[in-house]
């Protein structure tokens, strides 16, 4: 008759072997070559699954069932592990996946662009027309410090007084801009409302600044400063917003999925966009700190480079990876 003890005696050699293989594959045991026999491990795993099912059906004692559960859990984690990191994946991401994801989410990208641009233009025109309106966006100290930063006589354009070097501004831009972009994205969890708010807010703020500085006659320093890195920065923030809107829409209109499943799918698909956003904002920060801020460059050169950057970014998202479509 089969008893728990006999069951254990029959199979415990297999369990010990499987434990050994798992330790080896998990790298817990040092000095062993990585020649773990995958086929053997898979076979033992399947047998352990059968034995667990048997042990549960026969209500075998907890110590046997627990041991089998530990074994199968560990083996399951190892066997079904998905490898998603690597240089090939990175190449695919840049060459294909990112621009395709942007095109696939075109309605969201368009909406995000509109939600960002409209407040920019409205506030820009308003503040240009009545410069004192800037005080309803920021206080007078901030306004005058912005004026100072973009004055043609500034040692380095766009630098706050406390920052001593371009490097410091680089760190500051990375932290600040990426945080803004991530906020735009995460706001999507609140049915997209957070995203809409952050996009409109940042657009309005930028527009107000532009209107104010233009009214103050600082347009040549300001626009030549922002033109180049804006190609990466504004595009990235709009894409982050599009990713957020994608999540928000998935929550509001789940279609044939449950609301939760719909959200999970949207999130998984939107992460690709976030990889791109992070990379683009790092590029933007580097340009902003080391190129845009240099006032030894004539504005005409900066505008030329800016045009090239805009063309490159837009061209990348429109044309890259089409063949794979």
């Amino acid at each position, binding site marked *: 008759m089969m*008893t*728990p*003890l*006999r069951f254990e005696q029959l199979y415990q050699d297999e369990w010990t072997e499987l434990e050994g293989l798992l330790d080896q594959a*998990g*790298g817990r045991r040092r000095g062993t070559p990585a020649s773990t026999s995958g086929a053997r491990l898979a076979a033992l*795993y*399947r047998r352990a*699954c059968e034995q*667990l*099912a048997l042990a549960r*059906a*026969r*209500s*075998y*004692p*907890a*110590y046997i069932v*627990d041991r089998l*559960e*530990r074994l*199968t*859990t560990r083996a*399951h*984690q190892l066997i*079904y*592990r*998905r490898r*998603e*990191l690597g240089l090939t994946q990175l190449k695919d991401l840049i060459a294909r996946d990112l621009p395709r994801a942007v095109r696939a989410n075109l309605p969201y990208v368009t909406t995000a662009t509109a939600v960002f641009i409209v407040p920019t233009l409205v506030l820009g025109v308003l503040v240009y027309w009545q410069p004192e309106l800037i005080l309803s966006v920021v206080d007078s100290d901030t306004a005058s410090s912005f004026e100072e930063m973009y004055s043609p006589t500034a040692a380095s354009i766009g630098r706050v007084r406390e920052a*001593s*070097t371009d*490097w*410091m*501004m*680089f*760190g*500051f831009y*990375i*932290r600040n801009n*990426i*945080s803004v972009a*991530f*906020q735009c*994205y*995460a*706001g999507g*969890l*609140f049915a997209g409302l*957070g995203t809409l708010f952050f996009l409109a807010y940042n657009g309005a703020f930028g527009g107000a600044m532009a209107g104010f500085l233009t009214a103050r006659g600082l347009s040549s320093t300001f626009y030549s400063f922002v033109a180049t890195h804006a190609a990466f920065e504004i595009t990235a923030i709009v894409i982050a917003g599009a990713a957020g809107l994608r999540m928000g829409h998935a929550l509001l209109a789940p279609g044939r999925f449950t609301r*939760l499943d719909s*959200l*999970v799918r949207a*999130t*998984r698909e*939107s*992460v*690709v966009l*976030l*990889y791109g956003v992070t990379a683009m904002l790092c590029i933007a920060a580097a340009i902003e700190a080391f190129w845009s801020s240099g006032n030894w460059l004539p504005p005409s050169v900066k505008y030329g480079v800016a045009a090239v950057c805009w063309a490159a970014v837009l061209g990348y998202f429109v044309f890259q990876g089409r063949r794979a479509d």
Partner: protein
Amino acid sequence: MLDTAIAVETPEGILLELRPAGLNARFCAFLLDWAIRLAVMYAAAFIAAFIGGIGMAFWIILIFALEWFYPVVFELTQSGATPGKRVFGLKVVMDSGLPITPAASVARNLLRVADFLPFAFGFGIVNMLVRRDCKRLGDLAAATVVVYESRVETTLAPIEVAPIAPTMPLAPEEQAAIIALAARVPTLTTERLDELAALAAAVSGDRGRTGPHVTRRVLGVAQWVLGHR
């Protein structure tokens, strides 16, 4: 069920159990991670102050990286947990019980901003308290769950009792209950053990009786059921 365990089915058709970690354990892990990050930031600040300009730039980038990517980096290692989580025996896995994927890790950590709102992780905490699987918003969207990693290793302490054949047929659940009683012998007081054994005295034909003698006979049945003859 009072239990919060989640069962996930594997392709092999067996159910694996995940035990989600509650607010308390996760809060402790969070505090520890926060302290570690703070310590690294202060240490780096001292070094940066020596180097000057470039040092300060790297310091700001470091703060940024710690803020957003500290959990991602650790979750993608073998252990699937930040140092804080590891200390409290937690790890992050997918809903399917599999190791967390890079995309899910990025998503759940970027969405922490949403959990933080309206202040002091308000939405995250409320969500963790009302949900049985203790997920915060980021976990919901990324399809991840924070679980206790190690399971308690149960062993069967050998008992010096002669096996006795049960006097009645025993269903598998009854056999399991008798063996479970035998497994608990080392953790019970003698009095409590006698009380519990008295409830099962029918299996050795001692219905209604109690005392150390009956206990030994019930444990004898446990030995027999286990397979000792």
